[in-house]
C-alpha cells in the first residue's frame, strides 16, 4: 500500500488535505490528513465518495464527438483527431476574421487547482481572445470588504474558537463548511453563545442558541439597526478615531436615516430583539461575525456586507482575537501567474505581484474581449465584430448554473464549435460538439490554496490517468503543439512540459515569503500554513488608502457608490411572481457537482411554509408548478416550518429532470464587484416565481 498527498480542489471553504491510499496502482481509500489542523483527519461525504467517482462507469474516458448537438450520439475519437479538429477550427477562424477574438473561454472553479489556469495560458498564447471576467460567487462582498479594510482578509478560522459570541450571518457551515462546526462547538463548550441569522431555519441554525429569521435581502438594514442601538446606548469603541475614517459621517447617517421602527418593519425582526441582540453584541468581547456568501447575492449585496463590517467596527470587534467580521480571503493565492501568462516577446511585463481572481494582466485586459461571467450569453451574443464562434467550457457547467438560458440557446446556435472538458457529461456537454476527458486530482499534479483557512499545498498524482483522460495543462500543451504543428508560431503557450516543475514555478518570491519557505521544493513535503497572524487586522492598520478602517470610502465614491454603507432595498416581488425563490447549496452537492452515490431524484423539491402550502391547497407530495417570465419548473411540495410565507426554497440537489432549475433564473447583478473583479456579481437570490397546483 502506498500513501499520497491529495488536496480536494472543489470550490469550498474547507479545501481539505487528503491522504489517498493506493494498492498496486489502484486508488482504494481517501482519508483526511490528520496533520492538517483544519481538515483534522476528516473528510466530508463529497470527498469520501471520490474513489467511486474516479472509477465511475459514467466517467468519460476517451475524447468524444457528438453527432448533432443534444442528440446524445457520441462517438469515440482519437486525441489526435480531437486536437486537429480544434486547432484547424481556430486557425481557420483566425484567417476568416483576422483575429482570434471569435475564440471564447468560459472557465471558473470546477477545479480550483492552479495548474488549471493553463486554459487561460493557452488562450493568451493564441492571441487576444474573448474571456470572462468577474465571479458568479462572491464579487459584491469582496468589493465591499475592499472598500472597508483595503482588501478582503479573514482571520484563521481556528480563531473563532476564542469568541464569546458568534454571529453566523447567512451562512450554513453544517452543510457548506462542515469543518468549522467542531470549532464552533468548541467555542460553545467554552461558554460562547451562538446566534444564527438566516432566511430559513438551517441545520446550523438548529444548533445555535438563538435563530433569527431575517427577511431576505434586508440584512444590511438589520446591521444598521444594530449599529444605531450601539450608538444610542454608547457602546461604541472609544478608540474609533484612532483607526477609522468617517465615523462621524456614519453616526450622522444612523441618527438621521435609520429608524428602528422602519428597520423592524422591513427586516421582520422586532425592535426588542434588535435592541437585545445589539446590546449583547456591543457588550460581549470577543464577538465574531461570519458573513456568508448568500448574503451578498442580492442587488444590494455589497451594501449589506459594508453595513455588517461597519457594525463590527463600531463595536470595536475588528482586530480582536476571536472577533472580527469574517468573509473570506485571497491572500494565500499570490501565485506567480507564470502559467496563464506565457512569456511573449511583446508581453513580457506580467504583473505578478497583484493577485486577481481571473489572473489577467493589465496587458491582456487591453486586448482580450472581456465579458461578465454572469451575463456571458447575452454579452457574447452582442459581440459582432467579430462574433464569438468557438466556445471552450472548462471547469464550469453554465447550462446548469447560469441565468438566462434562452440567450444561451441563441448563443449555441451561432457557435461553430463547442468544446467541453470535464469528468462526466453535464447539461453543458449536451450542447457540445467535442468532449475532452480530464483527469481527477488523483491523476495529476496540482497546487491548491484555501480561501478561508491559510493553508497551501501540493496535490500529487496517486494513480495513472483513467482511460485516455488528460490533465487540463496537458490538454493546453497538446492544443498548442497541434497549433504550432499546423502553423508554426501560432501559439506561444508551451507545447510540452512537466506538471511538477510547472507548479513549483508558481511559487515565486512573494509566495515563498508568505509560506516561510526558502525553496519551492519544500512544499512537496506537506501542506504549509501561510505565516499570517491568526487574527485579521490585529494591529488595526488597514490596507485602505487612508490606512484606516473606512466607514467613509472615497474609493466607493469614485465607483459612483455611496461613500458610506447605506441601506438600499432589494428587488420586490411582483404580482406576476410574488414569491422569492432561494436555491441554497445542499450538503450533497457543490452547485452541479454531485457525488455519484447521491440519491437520484427525479423531481425538484419545493420547500415552503405550511401556511403558504395551505393557501394553495397543497399537501406534502403534491405536484405543482413554479414559473416566471424566464421559465417553468415542475416541483414536488414539501411544507417545512422555518421558512417564511413570502419565500420558497429549492436546495441544489442532484435531480434528473428535463428542465433545469436555472431555467427560472435571470441575470440580476449585484451592486458591487466591478472595481475589484472587473464585473458585478450574480444577484441570484433576487429570483421570483409564481406557484400553482397541478
Amino acid at each position, binding site marked *: 500500500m502506498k500513501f499520497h498527498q491529495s488536496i480536494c480542489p472543489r470550490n469550498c471553504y474547507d479545501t481539505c488535505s487528503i491522504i489517498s491510499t493506493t494498492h498496486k496502482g489502484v486508488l482504494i481509500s481517501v482519508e483526511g490528513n490528520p496533520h492538517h489542523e483544519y481538515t483534522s483527519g476528516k473528510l466530508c461525504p463529497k470527498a469520501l465518495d471520490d474513489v467511486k467517482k474516479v472509477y465511475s462507469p459514467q466517467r468519460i474516458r476517451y475524447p468524444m464527438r457528438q453527432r448533432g448537438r443534444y442528440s446524445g450520439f457520441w462517438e469515440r475519437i482519437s486525441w489526435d483527431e480531437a486536437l486537429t479538429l480544434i486547432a484547424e477550427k481556430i486557425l481557420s477562424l483566425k484567417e476568416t476574421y483576422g483575429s482570434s477574438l471569435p475564440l471564447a473561454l468560459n472557465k471558473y472553479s470546477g477545479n480550483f487547482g492552479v495548474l488549471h489556469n493553463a486554459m487561460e495560458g493557452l488562450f493568451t498564447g493564441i492571441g487576444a481572445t474573448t474571456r470572462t471576467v468577474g465571479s458568479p460567487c462572491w464579487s459584491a462582498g469582496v468589493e465591499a470588504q475592499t472598500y472597508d479594510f483595503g482588501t478582503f482578509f479573514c482571520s484563521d478560522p481556528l480563531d473563532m474558537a476564542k469568541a464569546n459570541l458568534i454571529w453566523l450571518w447567512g451562512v450554513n457551515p453544517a452543510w457548506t463548511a462542515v469543518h468549522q462546526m467542531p470549532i464552533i462547538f468548541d467555542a460553545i463548550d467554552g461558554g460562547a453563545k451562538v446566534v444564527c441569522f438566516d432566511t430559513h431555519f438551517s441545520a446550523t441554525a438548529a444548533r445555535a442558541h438563538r435563530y433569527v429569521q431575517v427577511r431576505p435581502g434586508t440584512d444590511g438594514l438589520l446591521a444598521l439597526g444594530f449599529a444605531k442601538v450601539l450608538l444610542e446606548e454608547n457602546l461604541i469603541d472609544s478608540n474609533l478615531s484612532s483607526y477609522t475614517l468617517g465615523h462621524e459621517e456614519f453616526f450622522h447617517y444612523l441618527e438621521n436615516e435609520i429608524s428602528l421602527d422602519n428597520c423592524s418593519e422591513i427586516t421582520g*425582526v422586532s425592535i426588542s430583539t434588535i435592541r437585545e441582540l445589539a446590546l449583547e453584541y456591543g457588550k460581549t468581547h470577543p464577538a465574531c461575525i461570519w458573513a456568508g456568501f448568500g448574503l451578498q447575492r442580492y442587488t444590494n449585496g455589497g451594501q449589506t456586507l459594508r453595513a455588517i463590517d461597519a457594525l463590527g467596527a463600531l463595536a470595536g470587534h475588528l482586530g480582536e482575537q476571536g472577533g472580527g467580521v469574517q468573509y473570506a480571503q485571497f491572500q494565500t493565492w499570490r501565485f506567480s501567474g507564470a502559467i496563464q501568462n506565457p512569456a511573449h516577446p511583446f508581453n513580457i511585463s506580467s504583473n505578478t505581484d497583484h493577485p486577481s481572481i481571473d489572473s489577467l494582466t493589465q496587458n491582456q485586459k487591453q486586448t482580450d474581449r472581456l465579458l461578465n461571467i454572469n451575463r456571458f450569453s447575452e454579452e457574447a451574443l452582442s459581440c459582432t465584430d467579430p462574433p464569438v464562434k468557438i466556445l471552450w467550457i472548462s471547469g464550469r457547467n453554465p447550462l446548469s448554473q447560469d441565468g438566462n438560458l434562452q440567450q444561451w440557446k441563441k448563443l449555441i446556435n451561432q457557435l461553430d464549435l463547442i468544446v467541453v472538458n470535464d469528468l462526466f457529461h453535464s447539461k453543458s456537454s449536451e450542447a457540445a460538439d467535442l468532449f475532452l476527458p480530464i483527469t481527477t486530482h488523483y491523476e495529476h499534479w496540482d497546487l491548491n490554496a484555501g480561501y478561508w483557512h491559510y493553508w497551501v499545498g501540493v496535490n500529487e498524482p496517486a494513480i495513472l490517468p483513467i482511460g485516455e483522460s488528460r490533465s487540463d495543462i496537458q490538454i493546453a500543451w497538446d492544443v498548442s503543439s497541434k497549433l504550432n504543428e499546423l502553423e508554426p508560431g501560432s501559439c506561444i503557450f508551451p507545447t510540452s512540459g512537466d506538471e511538477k516543475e510547472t507548479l513549483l514555478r508558481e511559487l515565486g518570491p512573494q509566495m515563498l515569503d508568505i509560506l516561510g519557505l526558502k525553496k519551492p521544493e519544500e512544499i512537496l513535503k506537506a501542506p504549509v500554513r501561510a505565516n499570517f497572524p491568526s487574527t485579521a487586522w490585529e494591529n488595526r492598520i488597514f490596507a485602505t488608502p487612508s490606512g484606516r478602517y473606512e466607514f467613509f470610502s472615497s474609493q466607493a465614491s469614485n465607483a459612483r457608490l455611496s461613500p458610506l454603507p447605506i441601506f438600499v432595498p432589494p428587488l420586490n416581488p411582483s404580482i406576476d411572481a410574488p414569491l422569492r425563490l432561494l436555491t441554497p447549496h445542499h450538503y450533497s452537492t457543490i452547485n452541479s457537482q454531485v457525488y455519484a452515490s447521491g440519491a437520484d431524484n427525479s423531481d425538484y423539491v419545493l420547500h415552503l411554509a405550511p401556511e403558504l402550502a395551505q393557501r394553495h391547497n397543497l399537501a406534502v407530495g403534491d405536484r405543482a408548478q413554479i414559473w416566471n417570465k424566464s421559465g417553468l419548473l415542475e416541483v414536488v411540495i414539501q411544507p417545512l416550518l422555518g421558512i417564511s410565507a413570502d419565500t420558497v426554497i429549492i436546495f441544489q440537489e442532484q435531480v434528473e429532470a428535463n428542465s433545469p432549475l436555472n431555467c427560472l433564473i435571470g441575470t440580476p447583478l449585484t451592486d458591487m464587484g466591478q472595481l475589484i473583479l472587473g464585473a458585478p456579481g450574480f444577484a441570484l437570490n433576487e429570483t421570483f416565481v409564481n406557484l400553482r397546483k397541478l
Partner: protein
Amino acid sequence: MSKQLGFLHNSEKCVGCRGCEMACKNEYQIDAAPQWRKVFQLHEEDFSLPTRMFFSMACNHCAHPECLRVCPVEAYTKRDDGIVVHDPNRCIGCRLCTMACPYDRPQINSAKKKVEKCNLCYQRIDNGEQPACVAACIPGALELVEINDILDQKTGVLKTLPGLPSPKLTTPSIRFIGPKQGKQIRRD
C-alpha cells in the same frame, strides 16, 4: 461476553452531513444501494419547534440480536466484545434477518444476493483503531463506547429517540444525547 461495545450518538452535534455514511462506503467500497450506516432526520412533528435534527444508525450490535436468532444458517455470531458479525460466506440471502431487525440495518445487496451489514469495523478495533464512521465524524457526534450502567446513569444519555422502535425488542447497543432546542425568532 466480557463487554458490550456500541455507539453513542449526539444529535446536538450531528449536523446531518452524511460523512459517516460515506466513510463506511470509502472503507469497504460498497455499492451505493446497501447502506450499512444511514443518517436519518428526526421527524419534525415529534418536537414542539422545527428541529433539523438527525441521528446516524448502523447495526446496533444488540444485546439480544434478532438477526442472529432467526438466521437459519448461523451466518451471525456475537463476539466477546458484543460485536455482531455477519459472515457473507454462510449467508444464503434468505432475508429473514432483514425482516426481523426492527432497525432495518441488515441490507440486501441485490447484485450479490446476500445480506450485508456493519460489523463495527472489528478488524480496525482489533488493531486499536476507531471504526471508520467514528474516525470520520467531523463534528465529533459519533463515539464508540462501552454500553454499561455507568454510561446509562449519566445525565442526558437516552436509550431511544422519538420515532424509534422500542429498545425492549432487541436491547440495542446504541445511546443518544438528545437534541437541545435554541430560541427561535421566526417570521413564519
